[in-house]
């Protein structure tokens, strides 16, 4: 039981990273950034290609994260930024993001094929932490995720740029009126989002392997975490991501792995309803 919990916690950390990646863009821009699924898929292939070219592990991971940042910044610079200037509504951004997602996935299929791949050959080394057995990839992934999330929390809470970033997430219009460079901050949000999605992709790919269609499933679960946990707060996504990871592991243990998605989304529906029913009453025009 403890092993299942630990497994869920580790995978929840990966989901939390991805949920924060989504929330970092969603809160300030209201862009439903489904293209993260494409970035999540693309990055492990870049890492794998670097490894095949003889790069070291750290250098390959670095290239992967850099490619995630580039792809995400490209999304803002070429797609969402210009659309924002045209005052496109959220549905338009969603459709554009969906298009970008499809393009990225198909590029992966055309270049690397549709076969499942892995960074290593054979089974992973097992390590024991406090009586719980974890694979080496899980253990290092969890440590990296905790460090990244803690670093991000400290940066957002205590740095000058982090404060501006929080303000961007809370009220972008007010920040623009205060004379801040919103476009630069938006680019930064997309860059952070790309980096977090890449880190999460590497974490999952190291543990479970990867294929071109793994991105959408992972991102949808992260979206669920972000929509429920981070509709009003950046770090709600972290908590909800971890909770979803644990619940999915338990659902897989009690029922079967195939019930994980229905259970996750049933909880999502339930929480969305509860949030709506118990939230403060809004004016009719605000609904």
């Amino acid at each position, binding site marked *: 039981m403890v092993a299942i919990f630990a497994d869920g916690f580790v995978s929840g950390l990966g989901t939390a990273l991805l949920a924060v990646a989504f929330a970092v863009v969603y809160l300030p821009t209201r862009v439903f950034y489904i293209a993260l699924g494409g970035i999540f898929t693309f990055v492990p292939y870049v890492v794998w290609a670097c490894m095949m070219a003889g790069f070291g592990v750290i250098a390959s991971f670095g290239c992967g994260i850099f490619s995630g940042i580039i792809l995400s910044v490209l999304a803002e610079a070429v797609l969402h930024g210009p659309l924002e200037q045209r005052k*496109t509504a959220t549905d338009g951004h*969603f459709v554009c993001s969906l298009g970008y997602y499809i393009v990225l996935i198909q590029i992966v299929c055309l270049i690397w094929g549709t076969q499942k791949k892995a960074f290593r050959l054979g089974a992973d080394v097992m390590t024991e932490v406090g009586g719980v057995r974890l694979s080496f990839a899980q253990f290092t992934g969890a440590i990296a995720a905790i460090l990244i999330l803690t670093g991000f929390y400290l940066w957002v809470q205590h740095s000058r740029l982090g404060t501006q970033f929080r303000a961007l997430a809370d009220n972008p219009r007010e920040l623009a009126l205060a004379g801040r460079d919103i476009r630069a901050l938006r680019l930064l949000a997309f860059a952070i989002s790309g980096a977090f999605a890449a880190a999460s992709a590497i974490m999952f790919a190291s543990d479970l392997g990867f294929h071109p269609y793994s991105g959408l499933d992972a991102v949808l679960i992260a979206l669920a975490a972000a929509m429920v946990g981070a509709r009003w707060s950046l770090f709600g996504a972290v908590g909800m991501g971890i909770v979803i990871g644990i619940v999915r592991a338990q659902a897989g243990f009690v029922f079967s792995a195939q019930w994980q998605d*229905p259970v996750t989304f049933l909880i999502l529906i339930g929480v969305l309803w509860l949030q709506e029913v118990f939230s403060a009453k809004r004016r009719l025009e605000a609904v």
Partner: protein
Amino acid sequence: MNYLLHLTIYFCIYAILAMSLNVMVGYCGRLTLASSGYFAIGAYSYALASVLLGWHFVPAILLGIIISALASLVLSVAAWRFKGDVFVMFSLAVQAIILGVCVNWAVGSAELGTWANLTNGPLGISSIANPVHTRGNFAILALALMGGAAVLCRLLLASPFGRILLAMRDDELALRGLGKGVKMAKVYAFAFSCGLAALAGSLYAAYLGYVNPSVAALDFSVLWLCMAIIGGMGNLYGPFAGAALLLLLPEVLRFAQMPTAVADDMRLLLYGVFLILMTFFRPQGICGRYRVD
């Protein structure tokens, strides 16, 4: 000739689906990713009614439409409170749950059609009855159903009810201010839209004679949403344009001597590129009226 008939049948199925999405997205203004779920409800209902109960084509199709229309209540009640991104998320959740039910409602060796095994899990249901025996006749049947659906859409959407839907899409608050029943309008429109998706699903199951959970996969919802958006929504011509494009693009690529696997990836790649270009240069799609921007 056989291949042309095959394409015609698929065109009809896609066009009915696009009409279904046209009602939900183009007229109600709610982007949804649950269409493959309702398509699957139609396909499975038809399969179970024809294989287990021995029902004929029309009652089996009607059963699928009724079940799907009832299941649409989950979405329409959600639409009372949610819109935009949250509604998209909600539709995604509904789709995931329907897919989960299709995959999981089957226990080991239990007989198909019992409460322990209603969908036969990943194996799916085979030997589904085909109402006609030749492909030509099936194409005529599919064309007739598509034509019927188009006439029904035209009548419904040109009626005062259709104008209420348009007004609801453009300014729900103003419509409520005028004392119109917005909630029930959503219920009826969603039931109609999901019923159409179920009709397409039933037709698909009857044509192939086999159905498995992959019909409820999210990829299909995404693909069909692309088809509807690229074709255009908010009128009756857009869905036909979208369905034609979905069908003709692979043929054009095949004509360009591309290997089938590459052509399949290229087709989807072009769909993605079209979606992006549409958002910038023609948000109403090829011949639609509703702009998704």
